[in-house]
């Protein structure tokens, strides 16, 4: 399978503290990957680098079949190139309806002038209804997103990501604050999404990761400590020491 994203030799430091240290990482076009690691391992920073929020001091980030470098692109052009991101704490637009939130995310021309003249077509409406039922919010389309529960907001954000139709989906702790049933549904959605795109999931909950049933990368002190199947990494002595043993 062809590689979609290749991160190599990337380092970032904050005030002298190396948050990411010579990190290398690869993911194929249709692959589901879990990233685990202790608090402060650099998982969120790793996503910041890919999405253009944080600029690394060294290293390369190559993306897509045309092998473009993401390092000099703005956040919005990286997103337009097909990188979608879900943040650690759910960020939806609370003041706007669920439908408006989904419409904002729907894959469309993002320029100010085309947005100004935009009119939702029948297809767009249907698509939004589909997405809403996929995330169990079909009856809440007109509700303000601020009225939703924490779990529902996580759903909405996942729905917004799907609406973006990204080629690479970066998901930071999607299951936080969800009930067991909701978690199960989330794993289903993520696995389904990974059939057509690359998905990177950061998660602490080992049960959740096990259910994802995919390759796992363990991050520690800003670099990859181990990589492989869940059974492989959980038996790794170093991983047990720094992460599981505690």
């Amino acid at each position, binding site marked *: 399978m062809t590689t979609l994203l290749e991160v190599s030799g990337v380092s970032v430091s904050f005030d002298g503290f190396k948050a990411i240290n010579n990190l290398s990482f690869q993911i194929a076009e249709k692959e589901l990957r879990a990233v685990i690691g202790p608090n402060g391992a650099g998982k969120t920073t790793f996503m910041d680098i890919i*999405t253009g*929020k944080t600029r690394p001091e060294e290293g390369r980030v190559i993306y897509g079949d045309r092998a473009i470098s993401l390092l000099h692109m*703005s*956040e*919005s*052009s990286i*997103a*337009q190139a097909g990188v*979608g*991101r879900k*943040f650690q704490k759910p*960020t939806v*637009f*609370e*003041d*706007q*309806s*669920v*439908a*408006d939130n989904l*419409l*904002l*995310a729907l894959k469309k021309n*993002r*320029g*100010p002038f085309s*947005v*100004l003249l*935009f*009119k*939702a077509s029948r297809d*767009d*409406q249907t698509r*939004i*209804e589909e997405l809403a039922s996929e995330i169990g919010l079909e009856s*809440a*389309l*007109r*509700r*303000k997103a*601020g*009225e*939703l*529960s*924490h*779990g*529902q*907001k996580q759903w909405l954000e996942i729905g*917004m990501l799907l609406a*973006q139709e990204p080629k690479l989906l970066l998901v930071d702790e999607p299951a936080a604050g969800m*009930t067991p049933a909701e978690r199960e549904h989330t794993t289903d959605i993520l696995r389904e999404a990974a059939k057509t795109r690359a998905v990177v999931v950061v998660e602490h909950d080992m049960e959740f990761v096990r259910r994802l049933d995919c390759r796992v990368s363990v991050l520690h002190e800003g670099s990859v400590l181990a990589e492989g199947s869940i059974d492989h990494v959980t038996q790794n002595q170093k991983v047990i020491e720094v992460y599981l043993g505690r």
Partner: protein
Amino acid sequence: MTDATLASGLRRQPLALRFPSVLVFLAALGLFTIAVTILSDGLGLGVISTSFIKTLGKTLCLCLVALAMDLVWGYCGILSLGHMAFFGLGGYAIGMWLMYARTELIVIESLKAAPLPATPQEISDGIAGQIFGVVGASEFPPIWAFAHSLPLQLAAVVLVPGLLALVFGWLAFRSRVTGVYLSILTQAMTLALSLHLFQNDSGLRGNNGLSGLQNLPGLDDFPQSTVSLWFFWASAIALGLGYIICAWIVSGKFGSVIRAIRDDETRVRFLGYPVEGFKLFIFTLTAVLAGIAGALYYPQAGIINPAEMAPIASIYLAVWVAIGGRGRLYGAVIGAAFVSLLSTWFTGGQAPNINLGFYTIQWVDWWIVLLGFSFVAITLFAPKGIGGLVDIFIDRKSPNRFGADLGPDPGALREQEAEK
């Protein structure tokens, strides 16, 4: 599922249905205009004096610039403290033509008495002498190059504020200046502009400003009572159109994006929207609206000078919008009309002074203190402003709990509560 059950951005309905306040507003504005015309000195019963017609017309212009302020601040979250500078620039642009054209007529008239017909050079020198005598100059500064042409100066009303906003906004937004730093930057721009205009060699007559703007060149036959009505109508039309444009923008997907920028700019970037482009669009558009409002205001005021563009003026504008209720278009209009009319009343010496025995409260001095207190009180206790009263009136309570669960179980929405 039908259209009606979907959200604003999805409904394909006429603007008036998507944004009901448009109809109410236009109807109210229309009735107001007709009523004032009927009661006016110029065409009607003579109940309202010409000077009060001018005050009302000016108030409509202030409502228009408040609308612009609401769009840029209330909807897009950019607290610009420089929009009155754009307002002033619009006023100067039209003022230059008014002053030039009128002086030209006067000069031609006076040269008629001379034995030889006047040459164009003599006429031009005559006009320059008349206009710039007060600042000790007798030649036209380069910025007056187009002052003879009404169409070009009208274009300047739109282009000068628009281009300034475009350049300033591009520099500021591109370097991601936000929040209070951006507000300070806009104040600095305003201060620099007004200090520049205060200088005699600014080419705009320094602190004398431009005057006599109430006289329309060549239309001396029409009394001020009639002219004042023309400007009143023009201001009403401009406000109505401005309201429609703003409503159209905020009710569609564009409005959804700028409100999202206001609430979480970073998130909008990660959705792929070029945030800077959206901000620049709104900043420039509102600067143009402010310029147009200024161009209608100053012919009614009769005079414009750099003090009008002092930084404090833009701060007042923000206060009006805050008191009226930002984030709703009619709120801005109500705030501007209410506070500016009240201010005219207090500072005009009409408000009765309060004698406390040991001290007399002179409203001319104390009005500003009262305004300050009202602003603080509204910010603290009624952040929705006067416009928030409408919510009580039409019983539209939105349960805005910012994330807290609505029901006993996490995520369970209590129907009645959410519907209200």
